[in-house]
């Protein structure tokens, strides 16, 4: 069999799908929960970046994974809080505030990188820990699934767990109910005494936590260093993933996996001899198609009764 075809049909391909999807699942959940609360959060790019950075720096200086985890999450949440403060309290346009914060994150991380690592590109002079790879012996027994699921980074499992956590938060906690209510009709929520600003802020904070995990995975799982602008647009792809999934847990997961699959496919196809641009563009075209088909099916059009 053609080695390319063989490799695509192998478990390693699906293994890599999960790995590629993980840094999309996290921010996609972040986008999803803030969307449910009625905020369009396009700052995930910046959130991931500062978390990726903070995790690596703290890890390098403390050699303690827990502290790095806390630092990464705090940094992400901090950006989310600034976004919340400006958009909710000071009524700044949230899109604009997010654009500014993405710019801010990109600048400040490189600036601090230079201070800590004396390098403006990557933090390879800082010796960072990585989150562990989980070996589950019982999984390797299972024929195909074992090959796909076993030996993944712990954050890959946490990504899937996060989808479940997201589900529980949204549908089984008072906070989730309030988030949905606030997102649908803030006046209604405030008329029963809910503090709309606070609930939206909570949603942004949760979004910051998810985004932070995505950032940590990039710098301390996927690779073991921080690189300038290493999120490379994943925060924007996350918007597409959650949108395809209608901000629902399973849908968002599937949306992210779709990206995982097309990206992994593009990576596997890269070595064949066609112009790389043509391969690189595939994921985006697929997204447009999926989004269009998905929307066409759920279009409110028919409900309105018009053509």
């Amino acid at each position, binding site marked *: 069999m053609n080695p390319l075809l063989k490799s695509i049909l192998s478990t390693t391909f699906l293994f890599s799908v999960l790995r590629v999807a993980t840094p999309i699942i996290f921010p996609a959940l972040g986008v999803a929960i803030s969307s449910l609360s009625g905020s*369009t959060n396009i700052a995930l790019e910046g959130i991931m970046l500062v978390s990726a950075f903070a995790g690596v720096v703290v890890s390098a200086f403390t050699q303690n994974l827990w502290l790095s985890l806390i630092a990464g999450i705090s940094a992400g949440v901090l950006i989310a809080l*600034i976004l919340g403060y*400006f958009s909710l*309290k*000071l*009524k*700044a*346009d949230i*899109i*604009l*505030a997010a*654009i*500014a*914060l993405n*710019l*801010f994150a*990109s*600048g*400040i991380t*490189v*600036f601090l990188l*230079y201070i800590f690592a004396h390098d*403006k590109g990557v933090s390879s002079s800082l010796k960072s820990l990585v989150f562990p790879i989980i070996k589950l012996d019982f999984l390797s027994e299972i024929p195909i699934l074992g090959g796909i699921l076993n030996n993944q980074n712990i954050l890959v499992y946490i990504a899937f767990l996060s989808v479940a956590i997201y589900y529980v938060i949204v549908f089984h906690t008072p906070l989730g109910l309030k988030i949905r209510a606030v997102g649908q009709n803030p006046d209604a929520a405030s008329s029963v005494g809910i503090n709309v600003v606070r609930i939206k802020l909570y949603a942004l904070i949760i979004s910051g936590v998810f985004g932070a995990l995505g950032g940590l995975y990039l710098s301390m799982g996927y690779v073991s260093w921080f690189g300038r602008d290493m999120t490379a*647009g994943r925060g*924007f792809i996350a*918007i*597409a993933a959650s*949108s*395809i999934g209608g901000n629902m847990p399973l849908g968002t997961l599937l949306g992210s996996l779709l990206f995982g699959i097309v990206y992994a496919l593009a990576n596997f196809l890269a070595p064949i001899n066609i*112009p790389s*641009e*043509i391969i*690189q*563009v595939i994921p*985006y*075209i697929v*997204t*447009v198609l999926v*989004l*269009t*088909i*998905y*929307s*066409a099916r*759920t*279009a*409110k*059009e028919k409900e309105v009764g018009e053509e």
Partner: protein
Amino acid sequence: MEKFILKYFNLLRTIIAILIGFVISISIILLVSKNSIASLGYLFLGPFGSISRIGNIIELATPIIFCGIAIAIPFQAQQFNVGAEGTFFISAALGTAFALIIQKLNLPGFVYIIVVLTFAGLMGALWGFIPGYLKAKFRANMVVLTLMLNYIAYFISIYLINYHFRDKSAGYLTSYRLPDTVYLKQFIPNTRIHIGFLIAIASVFIAYYFLYHTTLGYEIRMVGFNFHFAKYSGINVFKVIVLSSIIGGIFAGIGGMSEVMGIHRRFLWQSLPGYGWDGVVVSIIGRNNPILIMFAAFFLAYLRIGGQVLNLLSDVPYELISVIEAIIILLITAEAFLENVKYRITVQVAEKEVLENESPS
């Protein structure tokens, strides 16, 4: 006095916000720069330091103005179309290709320029049509569509230039140089301010007039305010959504090509240049009003050039300049900032006027 404050409140608020942004920037500079006083001068006065720097502001504002308008028109129809970035790029690429192809015709300069700009505008329209149609027809999410289309525009453009129009003598990805006849003239000595800037200014007024004085502009705004209402009134919402994207695309397209024809004279971007996002920024700051967008674009360009001068002449690191820019942008749109002050003055004025003229019942 109070009335005066109320009338110009938004302006005053913006000025105060900018001042606070400046104060924060100053603090940052004082912290990191060994020669902070000079650095401050570079940042704030540097842009006006010479004709060529003032020229730089205008040169940079030109593409931002085009993209700002391109964003504002669909925004007015409540279509969150952030596709100017990709439209700008792909129109420039296709326009460059077209200009190179028709080079053989030896068109006279003026005609050549018009034909190429028109072509780029058309390409922008075509690219704008895609999300407009998909949104209107299938209700696909506009933000996501246009985000994805930006990437698609990028790869198509790079492919086109790389495989078909790449200057073989160059090691980099860049098109052949355009023939001199198709350049947009740089008409102020010591600057690169070119005819494209005049087109941008004209576009501001055209777009303003279009939005507020034409029936199609009216339709776009009504759809934006409430599309149920528009539909009920007999406005063809489908058409308006598609047209708003197309018209936005035209401005982005012309903007992209004018940048190529006026500044670079070849297609040389290897990554998306970011003018589309600047367009989003100025469009929001300018509340989708072309005239205000123009001022916002000048302001953003001023900030950037200040940063550039600072970068060249001081020891402040390059990255901090974007941090400063981010802080100022954040503060500018803080609507509720000083809202209390405004409210208190409003109350004072209203109570004075209304209550005191009334005899309490």
